[in-house]
């Protein structure tokens, strides 16, 4: 019976729901992003957008809707990148010895942590969507119930795959690092380029060429595109720019996320095979 990863998953979720403050903070924080940053920027961008000519026949969405997808993506990025931290603490406090001296293959530790992190991302994404809809994010407008379900499923598949990739990366970093401070520094360093070369908060069309290339290979961009495609539609305009997505493009974006997750998994497996915990 090879269900060891469920044990790892169980323990991590147990800790997640045990600490009410932490749980509460992790859910409220992204909502606050949307509330403060979103509404503040929204007023600015929407005023500028109002002066631009509209695309006839194309649905125009407000800025809050535009960055709604970005906030979901950003939250998933941050949560996932920090999701492996528990492994660093387990290693430093000796807790990992129990796990590594048990018959569970090491790969199950990676998978278990990946799945629990993914679950946390699902919960957060759901909270942001509900909160966003209350604030005036125009997701799923004019969708039928079936279309909404289909879109939600699409969003979750994208969020899930993306978060797994970054959780594996986080696990690989955690098992390699010696101190939580070091890990914090590395992750903060990593989030910057991922975050600011993506289309989460602003359009990337007017980026200089180098940044555009970075933006194209950035998993965050692919996640945001996926969420916008499912939540807003395949043809809309925001901030005076027209966005069109074909199913083919979205499929390629998904493949990119899948490839990213796959590579990160291999890296995590390699880092784990190297570690000795005594």
């Amino acid at each position, binding site marked *: 019976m090879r269900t060891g990863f469920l044990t790892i998953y169980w323990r991590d979720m147990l*800790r997640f729901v045990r600490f009410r403050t932490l749980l509460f903070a992790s859910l409220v924080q992204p909502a606050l992003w949307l509330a403060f940053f979103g509404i503040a920027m929204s007023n600015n961008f929407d005023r500028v957008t109002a002066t631009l000519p509209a695309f006839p026949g194309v649905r125009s969405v407000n800025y809050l809707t535009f960055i709604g997808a970005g906030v979901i993506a950003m939250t998933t990025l941050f949560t996932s990148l920090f999701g492996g931290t528990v492994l660093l603490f387990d290693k430093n406090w000796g807790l990992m*010895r129990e796990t590594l*001296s048990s*018959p569970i293959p090491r790969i199950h530790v990676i998978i278990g942590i990946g799945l629990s992190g993914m679950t946390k991302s699902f919960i957060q994404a759901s909270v942001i969507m509900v909160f966003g809809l209350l604030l005036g994010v125009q997701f799923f407008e004019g969708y039928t119930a079936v279309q909404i379900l289909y879109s939600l499923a699409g969003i979750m598949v994208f969020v899930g795959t993306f978060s797994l990739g970054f959780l594996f990366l986080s696990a690989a970093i955690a098992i390699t690092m010696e101190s939580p401070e070091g890990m914090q520094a590395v992750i903060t360093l990593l989030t910057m380029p991922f975050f600011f070369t993506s289309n989460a908060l602003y359009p990337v069309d007017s980026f200089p060429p180098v940044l555009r290339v970075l933006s194209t290979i950035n998993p965050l961009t692919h996640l945001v595109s996926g969420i916008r495609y499912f939540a807003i539609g395949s043809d809309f305009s925001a901030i005076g720019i027209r966005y069109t997505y074909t199913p083919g493009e979205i499929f390629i974006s998904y493949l990119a996320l899948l490839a990213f997750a796959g590579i990160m998994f291999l890296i995590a497996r390699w880092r784990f095979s190297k570690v*000795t915990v005594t």
Partner: protein
Amino acid sequence: MGKCRRAPLLEDNIIEVNNLEYFFGEVKAVDNISFTVREGEIFSFLGPNGAGKSTVINVLTTLLPVQKGRARVAGFDLKTEPEKVRESIGIVFQELTLDRDMTVREILEYHGRLYSMPKAARQERIEELIKLVELEGKRDTLTRHLSGGMKRRLEIARGLMTRPKVLFMDEPTIGLDPQTRIRIWEYVKDINQQGTTIFLTTHYMDEADQLSDRISIIDHGKIIVTGKSWELKNALGEDLIYLETSDNREATESLRQLDSVKGIRDKAKGIVVMVNTDGTYLLPEIIDRLRSGGIRVRAVNLKKPSMDDVFVHYTGRELRDSGAEKGSVAIVRAGRR
């Protein structure tokens, strides 16, 4: 001595180690060690910090690889069948390894799940063990709220969760108060009597003495001597007589000529005479002999050899002095913790 003397269940070796060596980079932590542990016994590694005890335990529990030599645990080769070994053993680690944010039940539950125990068996075993280590009132308490002794008991319970053939205990009573230590010893004896072989490391003389069927004294990564506690002590003679005299060297010369004197060792201010006869009758004779030689006796003490004496005899130093030794593995490894 309050020790349980019982025949081993089987005259089989449950641990067999042949020419084991382990290096941390350039430092040789384990130096060509060979020993066997018989099924059903309590076997101790006694030695100072940094002697290589923990390294041996880490290798035997698969946390460190076998670099050189061969070792079998519970019938499985450590190199070729580490998973089989893992399934057959329980471990109580030297430092506490309990998640502070989990309850007593959850700690045991997690462990049972790690070893794929079926749910019913898990529940049953948890209740059994909570009773055994007397934590009934603490089932749903977070481990951060337990006392040091309770944590240790919980760790022992966890080590027993899967009914292992061998339980490895690395310094099981380190940092505990005397009463708690004695209670832990009682648990260890109970567990052993129920059939679990126990391999423990300790730097406490009394612990090795009280608990073990057999003891290996280990120092600088080598086994110096192995035997039953009384065998080791008897090797020093029947009694030890400590003397402080006006001329210790002269006294040594004089006493060496007695047949019943096995050996004499220098101490800081006096000498220790090892005798293989009843010291209570020999002592007056010794004092008379010295006095007639013009040597004044200032202080006398007569005692049975203890494990401390055994340790000093075989390693040539006191256990408590050795921890701070320069270049010992303990120093080199301290940074990793």
